Structure formats: structure tokens, C-alpha cells
């Protein structure tokens, strides 16, 4: 602060407080809705203090499911978790080894290989959904975890991030390892991997959130309700005919769907910010 202006300080607090309230209010309402029964919500005067149906709603959602999406939410959460972890670990694995190859080896078509990967940065899955769908169908991967995960790990962000990081690792480390007689595998395992841990963790946080929140892709390739992810499940709970919508179960599910990624952001904030800023999306 250049000069001391109590009024500016006050305005800063006020603006930020309003921001926090606006950001939190929709989620607060969802949490409240998850503690009432259908009737209380439907008549339009839902109180802003918690009701007494929380235990009932969460038990029903988690273990029995709603009237419309009949699968229990716990099962959808397992599916989402498998998908999110699969995408995060899969991407880290394939991109760290390909970045290692591109940075630490000289081989023919190295530049070409790098560009082939780099260009994928530009096209999100949304623009090539139907052709990708067809390929996944032809491979017999509809309604499988492989089909859910594989197409989404085809992207350059991870490789670029690791390449960037490897470039900052001093050359002397490799030279020293070579003098000590370490081969490519030893150098990777004993020197590079330990140094990369923060980068790996940052990428993991971003990819976990990305994977957990996927919508269009699982919507297309899962037909069996036992393969549904939680984000898709919520959509099915809210139908066009309002009378059938069990809002309390839908909102309970929404709260459950937000818990894992939001906890990741709050408790791994430093890694999250690092990952976000360095992958620049």
C-alpha cells in the first residue's frame, strides 16, 4: 500500500466479502436443500437454516439412488473416482516418459514428434466428439473405463509441463550421473523423478479436477447406468417434468459431487495454483 487510506481498506474488505458471499451462496443453498424433504422445497419457501432430513437424504442418495437415476450415488462416485484417477495417473505416466525422451535423447524425428504432440494442445475433445466416439465404439470400448479414460489423456499439457521443467534441471546433474556410470533408467529413477515430484503433484491436482468434472465424453460413451459418473447422474435426476424431480436428492448428489475436487483445491492450494499457472490450462 502506497498511502494509508482507511476508507480504501474498508472498501477492499467490503468488496471481497460480497464476492465471497456471492460465490458461496448457491452452494450454501444446495447444502440446505440437502437437509429438507421434497415437500418443503417444492412449496417454494425453503428456510435458510438446516432442516432435519440430512441423514435420510444422504443415506438414500448414497446407497439407494433417486427415483429417476436409480443407481446409488456411491457407485457413481466410484466411477468418477476411477475415471479421475485414471486420467491423472495415465496422463502423468505417458507424458513424463515422452518428455524424458524428447529432452534427454537425440533421435530421428525428435522435433516432428514434439510438434505432433504439441498441436493436440489446441483441440479440445468437444470438437471431435462423434469421430472419436466412432473409433471408441469400433474398438469395443463403449461402457468401459478404458474408453472413458484413454481419449482424454491424449493431450499435450503434461508433456509440455514436464519438458519445461526438465529444461530447468542443470546439465551438470546428467553429466555427473554419466560419470558415475548411471544409464538412462538409473538417471531417471534416482535423479530426475525425485526432482519432479512437485511438478507431478501439481499436474495430478489439475488433472484430477479435470477428470472428475468431465461431462460430454462420459455422457456419450456410457449407456449402462452402472457406468455413470456422478456429474452425469445429477443431470438425470433433474427432468423436464418438475413434478418428478426430487430436488433434495439432486442437491444432495450435487453436494457429494463437489466435495472431492473442492477439498483438493482447498487443501492442496499451493500445488493447485502452481499446476494451474504452469500448465496455463
Amino acid at each position: 500500500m502506497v498511502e494509508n487510506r482507511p476508507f480504501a481498506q474498508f472498501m477492499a474488505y467490503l468488496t471481497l466479502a460480497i464476492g465471497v458471499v456471492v460465490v458461496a451462496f448457491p452452494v450454501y443453498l444446495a447444502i440446505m436443500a440437502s437437509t429438507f424433504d421434497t415437500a418443503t422445497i417444492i412449496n417454494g419457501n425453503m428456510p435458510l437454516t438446516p432442516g432435519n432430513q440430512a441423514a435420510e437424504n444422504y443415506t438414500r442418495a448414497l446407497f439407494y439412488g433417486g427415483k429417476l437415476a436409480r443407481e446409488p450415488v456411491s457407485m457413481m462416485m466410484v466411477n468418477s473416482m476411477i475415471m479421475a484417477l485414471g486420467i491423472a495417473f495415465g496422463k502423468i505416466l505417458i507424458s513424463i516418459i515422452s518428455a524424458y525422451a524428447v529432452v534427454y535423447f537425440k533421435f530421428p524425428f525428435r522435433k516432428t514428434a514434439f510438434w505432433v504432440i504439441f498441436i493436440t494442445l489446441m483441440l479440445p475433445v468437444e470438437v471431435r466428439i462423434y469421430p472419436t466416439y466412432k473409433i471408441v465404439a469400433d474398438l469395443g470400448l463403449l461402457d468401459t473405463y478404458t474408453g472413458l479414460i484413454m481419449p482424454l489423456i491424449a493431450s499435450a499439457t503434461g508433456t509440455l509441463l514436464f519438458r519445461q521443467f526438465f529444461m530447468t534441471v542443470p546439465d551438470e546433474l546428467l553429466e555427473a550421473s554419466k560419470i558415475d556410470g548411471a544409464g538412462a533408467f538409473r538417471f531417471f529413477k534416482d535423479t530426475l523423478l525425485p526432482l519432479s515430484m512437485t511438478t507431478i503433484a501439481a499436474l495430478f491436482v489439475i488433472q484430477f479436477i479435470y477428470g472428475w468434472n468431465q461431462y460430454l465424453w462420459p455422457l456419450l460413451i456410457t449407456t449402462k447406468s452402472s457406468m455413470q459418473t456422478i456429474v452425469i447422474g445429477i443431470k438425470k435426476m433433474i427432468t423436464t417434468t418438475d413434478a418428478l424431480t426430487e430436488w433434495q436428492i439432486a442437491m444432495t448428489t450435487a453436494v457429494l459431487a463437489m466435495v472431492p475436487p473442492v477439498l483438493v483445491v482447498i487443501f492442496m492450494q499451493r500445488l493447485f495454483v502452481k499446476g494451474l499457472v504452469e500448465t496455463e490450462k
Partner: protein
Amino acid sequence: MEKRAHFSGWTLPLLLILPQMAITVIFFYLPASQAIWQSFLREDAFGLASEFVGLENYAALFEQPEYYRAMITTVIFSTLVAFFSLAVALLLATQADKNIRGGHAFKTLLIWPYAVAPAIAGVLWMFMFHPTLGTLGRPLNVMGFNWNPMLDGTDAMILLVLSATWKHVSYNFLFFLAGLQAIPKSVIEAGAIDGAGPVRRFWTIVFPLLSPTTFFLLVVTIVYVFFETFGIIDAVTGGGPAGQTTTLVYKVYADGRSGGDLGLSAAQSVILMVIVIALTAIQFRYVERKVQY
């Protein structure tokens, strides 16, 4: 940039790069080239035979009034979300950048919506602004605003803009805050010594120095509105009422699902690819150079 020391050998690096290459080719290049190829074909009604028709699919697309409407919808939607999410994020970031107690706590409390799935963000806002049972939607109707996003296209768009902005402010806020913190304090102090007040300092020193960040965020936000808001649209309006919130991306999905013409759908995909590539190219070309002082 190159490393001074390398490992020798070809087989190992090729093996290491193989998984990434295989996945990229199968799930990226193959579908993308199929989309391009298909956009030049027309299938018969039973999907048995197809013939090469050149640019006819594109011509047919540009004769559809719905396609223009989707374009206009996309432009309106992106402009509104970009403007509000950047403006709100910048306002919050400048306040959080002031030397205040608890700045870090505010940061945590403002960034978590990044982790909420777009579809869920949409559901939350729809519940809040539901015309008959929403905590904020019902009072609007009681006051006589005749609010109904299920029936009125403008109301539906307002709801989409609100939820898409709500979700994206956190991202822009983080980057603006980082950008603000990177501006040397000495420059601002020099401005203060010369007698410029906080407002003048903001518009003549801070804002210009922040322009690379702003430009970067503008491109990222537009890409976000184009693609990631699919979940919001599908959960909140399903492209309705009467197609009034159907964006370009949503139209590709909806046309394909209703079993429409494959060639037409492929042509739409190709146009989208061109738009994204152009946006990304602009970003890489200009972000570092033009918008700097």
C-alpha cells in the same frame, strides 16, 4: 533450447514416446482427419453409401438460419461471460492485492468454484433461480418480473451467463492476482509521488502493465465459453427454449444425437477446429509481444 548432454540410442526414446504417440494418433489425429474427410461426403438415407460432394456440406450449413442463430448466440454468450468474468475478477483481484489482513483467506474463499463441474454449477444456479421454488427465482415472480428461464430465451441466457461467470471468475481472479503481484511496487510509488491518486494510478500504470494477462485471460475465457460451458447448457437449458441457447458446440452435439446428417455435423466440427486453432495461434503470437509496454 537444447540440453548439453544426452543419452545415445534410438530404441529406448522411441519406446518411451510410443504410448503418447499411439494415443494421440488413435484418439486425436484419426478422429480429426475423419471429421475433415466426412465433411466432404454425403451419406444416403440409410448410411450405406457415401459420395464426395466437395464443399456442399459447408454451403448447406451456411444456408441454415439455425446455424447463424447458433453463431449469434455463441457470440453474445462469449462476450457477456468474458466481460463479466474478467471485470469481476479484476475488481476482486485489485482489492485482494491491497495490503490487507486475511488476504490469503479471501483468496482461498474465492478460488474454489474452479473445482466445481460446469454441469453442477448450472444445476446450482438453476435451483437458486427456479421460477417456482428457487430462493431467488420465486421472489422475482412475486415481484412481477415474469421470470421463467424454461420458457423465455432471454431469461435462459441470463441464467447461463450467471452460472458460467460464477464458475470462471475464480480462474481469472487467480491470474489477475498473480499479474498484479508481479508489478513492481516502485512504479506505483513513483506514480504516487508524482501526485496520481489510486484511480489514476490504476488506469495509467497498473491496467496497461496488466494487459498481457488480460489478453491471455480473454482468449482462455473465450475458449472456456465455447467448449467447457457445454455442461452448463446441457444441464440448465438443453439448448432451449426453442433452440434459443444453442451454441455452436451444442449444435454439433444436438445434431449428431438426433441422428442428423453426418456430413453436416462434420462440417460444423471442422469450422470449430478452425476457430480454436485461430484463437490459439493468436494467443501464441500476440500474448508475449504486442500487448506489452
